[in-house]
């Protein structure tokens, strides 16, 4: 018993922080129905931070530390992880789950910690006047929905009156997010929208695809995650739905989703707010400093996959925000409050991305007190089954903010009224 106690104490001592560091909690999920997406994201996030430590000695001379906590995409475990990590000086949370994000928005705001829900979470958090601690730059679900419609417009020469578009969505807060925007857009452009919900975890979609076969929509768009994506793509293949008319959101656009369908998935499209592929100079550094030294997170086999890149990009934006905060406050070991300032005045330029070895990895943008959502520019990627790669077929383009902005205002105003929040940034 005593030996065990001593061993435990020794282990705790070994794991305890030795000196000042920058703490980035990673609420990851390497288990469960959504692990296929959770693993590459967590790996990308951790690898970038390891790269900074190994190559540059941290950010501004302070080492970074990843605190990984397994949530299994489960909100209760998410709460546990948040409570377990928040006391360690956590700078920014990236829950990678819309459900957990909803949970943490009020909690993190009360605790003065930032949340960066990049391309997920509560879309109206883009309104910084109401959501002081939540950021979802560079793009959100509604930008994604608009980009899908925009792409369909482009393909059809700008006229989609009378066309039918079906939305296959995960029946949860995440999947329901784009519905309102798509409804507005359907009024504006005159297309017919049909909604098909798929329940967690999404392995059973026969009836939804039967309905699609019957209704013959011209386009299908998908808000899926985890195992649901590959099932949907396989079902689409089974009913011989033309793949180039099937467009997923960025969470339905990874290698894991299309590979199981083999060559039949060729031509499947997904919108994205960051670049794809492993053809960036920074990945040379990752190989040299992280993979070859055996410090890669997970199995180290995810580099360059779509969701790895997203985790990598999220880490890059977090690190740049830290740099910005260090510059503003002149302190290297920043606090969560300083991190908020750093995120709120973050500016990402093409020159800076090139300097980081990530040219054209994402859009260049600037965050402000009012706008936590970034520019909302979205590109389209297409899957090539023969070379097993994604490639951008359209550059990052503006989305229809004339539709999205009023929706953001309305939803955030409702949240502000429910919770008695006074507008900031005046």
């Amino acid at each position, binding site marked *: 018993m005593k030996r065990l106690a001593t061993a435990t104490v020794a282990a705790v001592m070994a794991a305890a922080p030795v000196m000042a560091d920058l703490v980035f909690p990673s609420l990851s999920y390497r288990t469960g129905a959504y692990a296929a997406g959770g693993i590459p994201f967590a790996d990308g996030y951790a690898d970038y931070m390891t790269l900074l430590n190994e190559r540059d000695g941290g950010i501004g001379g302070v080492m970074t530390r990843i605190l990984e906590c397994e949530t299994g995409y489960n909100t209760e475990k998410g709460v546990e992880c948040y*409570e377990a990590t928040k006391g360690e000086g956590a700078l920014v949370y990236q829950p990678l789950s819309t459900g957990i994000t909803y*949970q943490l928005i009020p909690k993190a705001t009360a605790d003065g910690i930032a949340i960066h829900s990049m391309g997920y979470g509560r879309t109206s958090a883009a309104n910084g006047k109401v959501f002081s601690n939540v950021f979802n730059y560079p793009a959100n679900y509604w930008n994604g929905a608009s980009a899908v419609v925009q792409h369909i417009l482009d393909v059809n020469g700008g006229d989609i009156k009378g066309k039918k578009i079906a939305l296959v969505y995960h029946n949860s807060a995440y999947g329901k997010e784009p519905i309102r925007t798509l409804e507005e857009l359907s009024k504006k452009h005159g297309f017919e929208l049909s909604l098909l919900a798929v329940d967690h975890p999404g392995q059973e979609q026969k009836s939804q695809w039967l309905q699609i076969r019957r209704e013959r929509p011209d386009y299908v768009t998908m808000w899926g995650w985890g195992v649901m994506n590959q099932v949907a793509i396989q079902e689409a293949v089974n009913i011989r739905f033309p793949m180039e008319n099937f467009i997923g959101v960025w969470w339905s656009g990874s290698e894991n989703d299309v590979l199981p369908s083999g060559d039949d998935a060729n031509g499947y499209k997904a919108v994205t707010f960051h670049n794809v592929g492993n053809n960036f100079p920074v990945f040379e550094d990752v190989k040299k400093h992280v993979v070859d030294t055996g410090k890669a997170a997970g199995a180290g086999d995810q580099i360059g996959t779509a969701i790895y890149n997203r985790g990598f990009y999220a880490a890059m934006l977090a690190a740049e925000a830290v740099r910005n905060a260090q510059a503003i406050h002149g302190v290297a070991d920043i606090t969560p409050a300083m991190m908020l300032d750093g995120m709120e005045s973050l500016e990402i330029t093409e020159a800076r991305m090139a300097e980081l070895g990530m040219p054209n990895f994402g859009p260049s943008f600037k965050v402000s007190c009012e706008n936590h959502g970034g520019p909302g520019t979205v590109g389209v990627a297409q899957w090539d089954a023969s070379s097993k790669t994604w490639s951008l077929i359209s550059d990052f383009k503006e989305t229809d903010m004339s539709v999205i902005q009023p929706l953001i205002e309305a939803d955030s105003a409702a949240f502000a009224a429910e919770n008695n929040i006074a507008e900031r940034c005046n």
Partner: protein
Amino acid sequence: MLYRESGDFSETYKADSQTFPIKFDRYRYYAVLIVAFLVIPFVINDYWANAVLVPFLIYAIAAIGLNILTGYCGQVSLGTGGFMAVGAYACYKLMTAFPDVSIVVHVLISGGITAAVVTLFGLPSLRIKGFYLAVATLAAQFFLVWLFNRVAWFYNYSASGQINAPDRTVFGYLVTGPNTEAWAKYLICLIFVTFTGIVARNMTRGALGRKWSAIRDMDIAAEIIGVNPLNAKLSAFAISGFFIGISGALFFSVYLGAAEVGEAFGIQKSFLVLFMIIIGGLGSIFGSFAGAAFMVLLPVFLKNVLVGGLGWDTALAAHLEFVIVGALIIVFLIAEPHGLAQLWRVAKEKLRLWPFPH
């Protein structure tokens, strides 16, 4: 030596029929209450409240509720998750519609609404039994989740279908919302647990509980000796629903603060609560607590030991957690099919004779 009846004389019928007839047991019970009410609130922190004690207390209420229905009355239910969702959504609608009414009242009314809904789904139990009833309650589970997903009125037409608990106070102290102090959260749940525990314990000891047990053991025999199956079964559904509704309301408003029905109140929740009462012990109030503790605390404890203490990889630890919890469930059920409560009972029997067993 200490744990025995002898020397403890009851002079009134009331004293004779009290919950804990053995003096040592009684004092232990008071000691637990004193520690729970007067010590823990002063030392509790956010982590202990949000990750350990509040979920334990809330699941204990749900387990007591299900135990009344399944353990005492013998009606198998797989609808607990859906019934908790009724409590949660009723609480949300009440909180937003009547912001000036106390949250305690809302939680109790949510329990009442859930009782009504559960009774409705209990009606088929008069005709169908056993596995068939389990399937009927399973249908209730899926129907209720579908309903709360489908009808936007239940979530006040929010874009994502999420419900969020606004700030509410009891005697001027916040008990819901993000700014709630850990002790307030803990204490409000503890008060509800104590209330439901005492009510359930006394109900199951009284005439109603004996009717339930009679129905459970053999419903035809019970009917012959004069137990009305309609009353007995439906009262078990209603009272069980009341407790489960309270736990659902607290689960959403005090513990999570935001919830979506499919994720928070899915079929896994029904199974989780069912496992709690099976492992804890069917037909035992103590078993409800023991089962809730086992299923809530063990994963958190394992995670802290494996990841926090030994520094293991999180994915490996998560997988191993499943293995260990699963193996322990099997071991417990083989070693003691009647659950942790039976172990406790056996321990008490042994204690009575200690240190001089025959």
